[in-house]
């Protein structure tokens, strides 16, 4: 199938006008969530309570639509007015910092990644709520526990809502044409597949440019699948290792199989190239599939049918080294209505609300509570399988050290990404690049 340049331009502008995309994924029955019979803790909202909530902006429509619907239902049932503000992803972390430092503003911030750990002293303890939800819904996923609890304790400081994960996204027919039924789990096999894909004219493509999500995700996979890591368990820089050198050498071979121009891709680069049929395989969230499936264009809907997802190849790691970007709800101590805030979060996490929201997002968010992985929509569309376990992972930004702001600073400065980029383009030797990146990373780790 050939898609012209012009079609792709149209597609790109269509995805900008995302509000016109119809909501897909039927409203799932919530009876498919197995629950234990646990009595909910009583959080009686304070008299005259009202709440303000800050959360990340939606990338797929149902995320916002269902969130708002559930919030309206909450207001109707409890009489507590709730105002929800959706904030662009770049602005969310600075705003969270302002909320934390000024002790004013929103009562609940649904923030990213390590923020609960950073602002731990300003947060209301939510152990009672988290314990209840965990007991009722089969326990929390591993990544949810990591971000929800205070480091090395059992105190819950936030309620993890979900995480965005990025498995392998590929064109089934082309991978078959290359002689494979599924994506090989070992490094040599994966490289061979990518080489064959290039031979048949449907190369792979992964960004090593300054793409905050995609490039850091790819670089992390390269490290983790070689058992290399940025820092050790104590937070000491462990990047300059022989495992990292191996990862760099492997990346150099893999780069030769890619479509041209991946070093300048930003986060939209692989989405655009995939939708144009320029690449046959990449790592990405569900957004590629979602946009294709929701398209008005038959050609793109056909492409969605041919699209498949699979967890990232394990390489030398024991589990698929795939992480997720989590969003965690924090209740700030400055709120006048802590009970109302907890009740709101409990309500949003219950199956009647969470189930329809999760299923309508078709994998954009992976569930933080284990029971939700059993929902039917995950198996109705087998393409979504890798997303059902998105938060069932031991890998996280800054693995394997303590969760601190430093790992976010390393990502924002593309330290690891640039290490790979300079080696795969032949601008640095693996040894010198690893050494230099370790020095750069140390700049951020010393300050936290």
């Amino acid at each position, binding site marked *: 199938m050939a898609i012209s*340049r012009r079609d*792709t*331009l149209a597609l790109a502008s269509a995805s900008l006008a995302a509000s016109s995309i119809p909501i897909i994924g039927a409203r799932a029955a919530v009876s498919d969530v197995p629950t234990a019979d646990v009595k909910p803790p009583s959080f009686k909202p304070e008299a005259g309570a009202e709440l303000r909530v800050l959360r990340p902006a939606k990338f797929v429509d149902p995320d916002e639509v269902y969130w708002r619907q559930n919030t309206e239902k909450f207001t109707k049932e409890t009489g507590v007015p709730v105002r929800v503000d959706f904030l662009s992803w*770049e602005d969310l*972390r*600075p705003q969270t*910092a302002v909320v*934390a*430092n000024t002790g004013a503003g929103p009562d609940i911030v649904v923030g990213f990644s390590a923020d609960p750990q*950073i*602002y731990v002293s300003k947060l209301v303890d939510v152990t009672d709520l988290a314990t209840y939800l965990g007991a009722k819904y089969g326990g929390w996923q591993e990544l949810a526990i990591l971000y929800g609890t205070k480091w090395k304790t059992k105190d819950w400081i936030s309620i993890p809502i979900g995480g965005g994960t990025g498995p392998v996204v590929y064109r089934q027919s082309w991978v078959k044409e290359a002689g494979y039924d599924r994506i090989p789990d070992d490094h040599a096999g994966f490289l061979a597949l990518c080489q064959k894909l290039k031979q048949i004219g449907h190369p792979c493509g992964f960004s*090593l*440019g*300054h793409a*905050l999500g995609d490039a850091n995700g790819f670089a992390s996979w390269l490290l983790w699948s070689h058992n290399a890591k940025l820092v050790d368990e104590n937070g000491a820089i462990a990047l300059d290792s022989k495992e990292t050198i191996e990862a760099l050498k492997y990346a150099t071979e893999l780069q030769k199989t890619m*479509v*041209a*121009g*991946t*070093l*300048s*891709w*930003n986060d939209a*680069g692989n989405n*655009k*190239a995939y939708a*144009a049929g*320029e690449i046959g395989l990449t790592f990405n969230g569900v957004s590629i599939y979602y946009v294709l499936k929701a398209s008005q264009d038959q050609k793109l809907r056909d492409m969605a049918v041919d699209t498949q997802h699979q967890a990232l190849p394990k390489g030398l790691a024991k589990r698929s080294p795939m992480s997720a970007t989590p969003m965690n709800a924090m209740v700030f101590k400055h709120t006048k209505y802590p009970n109302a805030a907890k009740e709101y979060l409990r309500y949003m996490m219950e199956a009647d609300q969470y189930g329809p929201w999760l299923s309508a997002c078709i994998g954009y968010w992976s569930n933080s509570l284990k029971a939700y992985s059993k929902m039917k929509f995950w198996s109705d569309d087998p393409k979504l399988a890798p997303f059902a376990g998105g938060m069932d992972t031991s890998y996280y930004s800054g693995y394997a050290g303590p969760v601190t*702001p430093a790992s*976010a*600073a390393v990502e*924002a*400065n*593309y330290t690891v*990404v*640039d290490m790979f*980029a*300079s080696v795969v*383009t032949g*601008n640095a030797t693996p040894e010198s690049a690893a050494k*230099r990146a370790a020095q*750069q990373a140390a*700049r*951020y780790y010393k*300050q*936290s």
Partner: protein
Amino acid sequence: MDATTIDGTVRFVPNRTQSWLGRLFDWKPFLVFLCMLPTIGLLVIFLTYPLGLGLWLSLTDTTIGHRGDYIGLENFWSLYDDPVFWGAVWYTIFYTAVATAGKFLLGLWLALLLNHHLPFKAFIRAIVLLPWIVPTVLSSIAWWWIYDPQFSIISYVFVNVLHLRDTYFDFLGAPWPARWSLIVANIWRGIPFVAITLLAGLQTISPSLYEAALLDGASSWQKFRRITVPLLMPILSVALTLSVLFTFSDFQLVYAITRGGPFNSTHLMATLAFQRAIPGAQLGEGAAIAVAMIPFLIVATLLCFFGVGRRKWQQGGDND
């Protein structure tokens, strides 16, 4: 008659003694100060305070989320050892020098063309201003598409229309092509400013000078060299200073197109300062990079002002 009026004069006595407030307002230094107060207020709030805060932040280890402590010049020492910072300094200087030269050569040329009598002169002059008028973010996004590795219109023309190449250009995928691509985009954006400013300068040159030169048998080059250039110098120096400042502190173009990639080869000091300070949350270090721009800007300004346009008018006199 009793002659009570001894000297026959009447002394003028104001019928109302002036209050201290009235006297104060009659006092010229006070009045001058009062009239300057709004301007001083604006300058303090919008210039001095941010600048002072930036200077202070650069001496602390402030991060987003934590008020930092005073650490002296540690940020600067740390930057001194940072190859990424020096790479950004180097590219900023290179970018400014090459882009400014390009803008002035092409801008002057354009101004000379526009100074001739052309049909639809006003219309053409308006069109020339377009790159300057369009918000930078929009033109940056347009350039981003032009340089896209898969969807570039330039590559499309070369490969699919003219069949001159087999593969698409990789404009931004390697350090040098990316650096030059950004410079071209910056020149495109900056030409109108230079052209229109110089055009204004050209139109103040009296035609009689050219007529006199013509009678003396001067060639075009001599007229340009001996009349146009010297009389254009004052405005040239102002335009040059402004242009260097704009280019040196450029941010949007680089941030929208490459974000400093590939591997930091296209970071300007401004984009690096932002990346370290806001997404990277190291406010102190970001501020230190921004502060490090100041000496460069001062030197650049002095060079432009005194090097190119050392004229009496700058000290308030006439040109000779």
